[in-house]
């Protein structure tokens, strides 16, 4: 893999663009922020700390991301809503064979049709990023929710 150093602006842009694609409902743009052999996981602090392998959502390939997007857009039933993500504290914390290791904190706000905006979740992400050509991508992304308790349901990725 490339040892090209990660430009902080690229990292910030990756987080911002990925969040915006989901917030703006442009789910079809989301898989392209990941490498082909990516892993994408949403789990809880509880599962992580207990060493339990179950995740709320666990994709082992970009194909699974595409299937998730298909479900979100075509098969899942959910009450109409919009989410809004704020990502903070993005930073590089090391590097491994798989790419550069990054961390960030996030809060997700949710608005159901006709309702107030509410806090949906907060947590942190443990990420591995690397360049594919000029584009920085997630090779691995693990979103860890602080709460064990999901408010109603989680139809979308974090």
């Amino acid at each position, binding site marked *: 893999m490339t040892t090209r150093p990660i430009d902080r602006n690229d990292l910030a842009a990756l987080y911002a663009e990925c969040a915006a694609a989901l917030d703006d409902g442009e789910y079809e743009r989301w898989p392209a922020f990941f490498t082909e052999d990516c892993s994408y996981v949403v789990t809880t602090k509880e599962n992580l700390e207990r060493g339990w392998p*179950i995740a709320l959502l666990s*994709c082992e390939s970009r194909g*699974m991301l595409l299937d998730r997007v298909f479900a979100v857009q075509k098969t899942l039933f959910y009450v109409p809503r919009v989410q809004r993500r704020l990502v903070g504290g993005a930073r590089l914390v090391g590097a491994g064979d798989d790419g550069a290791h990054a961390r960030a904190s996030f809060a997700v706000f949710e608005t159901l049709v006709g309702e107030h905006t509410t806090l949906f979740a907060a947590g942190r992400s443990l990420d591995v990023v690397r360049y594919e050509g000029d584009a920085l991508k997630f090779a691995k992304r693990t979103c860890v929710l602080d709460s064990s308790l999901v408010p109603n349901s989680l*139809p979308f990725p974090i």
Partner: protein
Amino acid sequence: MTHKLNVPNLSAAAWPEEGLTRVPYFLYDDPAVYALEQERIFRGRSWNYVALAAEVPAAGDFARSYVGDTPVIVARDKDGDVQVFVNRCPHRGAQLCQSWSGNAKAFTCPYHQWTFDLKGRLRGVPLRKGVNGLGGMPADFDPARHGLQRLAVTVRGGVVFASFADDVPGFAEYLGPSNLAYFDRVFDGRGLRVLGKQRQRISANWKHVIENIRDPYHATLLHTFFVTFRLWRADQDYAMKLDATGGNAVQFIQKVDRGPTEATRETTSRHADVRLADPRVVEAVPEFADGKSGAMQTIWPNLIVQQTLNSLATRHAVPHGPGEFELHWTFFGYEDDPPEMVERRLRHANLYGPAGLVSADDSEVLNVVQLGATKGPAGRAVVELGGAGTADAEGMVNETMIRGFYKHYRQIMGI
């Protein structure tokens, strides 16, 4: 109309005169009904799921759980027995245990450090005799009368149930023969391995999720993912078995490979030729000797046991006020699972839980049923599919299990 003013008349007369083909909507939001459910159902003569024994494998292991909405501690004592206590200190009522799980030699209350052993016996009262002859407990204070409130416990196949009642029937009798057989099919005595938890708080009354599971009708209609990828069809072989009370029920399905029929045409997806980009998420291997690809069981009052594809889970519906409940999913496998089976169980979990490609539909629709049923004028559900009875039945277009649930509910609640 009176029940809209929160004064339900909980006599049998409050029930619609049609009987079990109608369910009145005040059951879903009335605080007095909710409080009575806690007393009569959850703190009454019921076996309440609290945990898998595998969550507390060693002496001193503990986990928090609920019986109805009463917080309890599930602990393994030094004799290897599982104990269930109300999570309340007998001194002045502090919640004894804050952590969700752990290992402890004893339980010590944070407030005044009264200490209880793993059987719930009061073992230590700091400064019980006072200091320098001043204060302390009266001489006749009897620690034996101030232990934790212990519930009756039964463990079967590695699953722990608890009861506030001393006179609840044995678990086998409680479940009835047909349901016991299906319970034992999954919990067959092999050691269980906990794979993890998923928890969600849903803005709906807890009974909605029990109805949802007892309602095969919705599966081919709501769950577009299943239908789109041909995992489920309206004309598959399907059977439902209820115990004599109606409180317990099991349903099982057999994957069939036939061409389209009239029934599938009625429920066909608009996305007929779509294929999964990575189909591993639904690739299952048969694992039970009876060849059944799936069985879902509900055990009175609030446990669901799921076996679908290679995914195994208990779902514990914890009431949280009249309009909310929590669903706690414990995914598990067997200790002797080969690695590729574990992988499969983990992958199939993508279908279930709050983010499940299938179960998210249910979480959302429960919310929608709660809103619809409880906002507006008084009303009642129509539960006529398959007739008015509560007998065992075949086929998916049948609400017999919902009627069965309310048969038992009315019996217990006196309504």
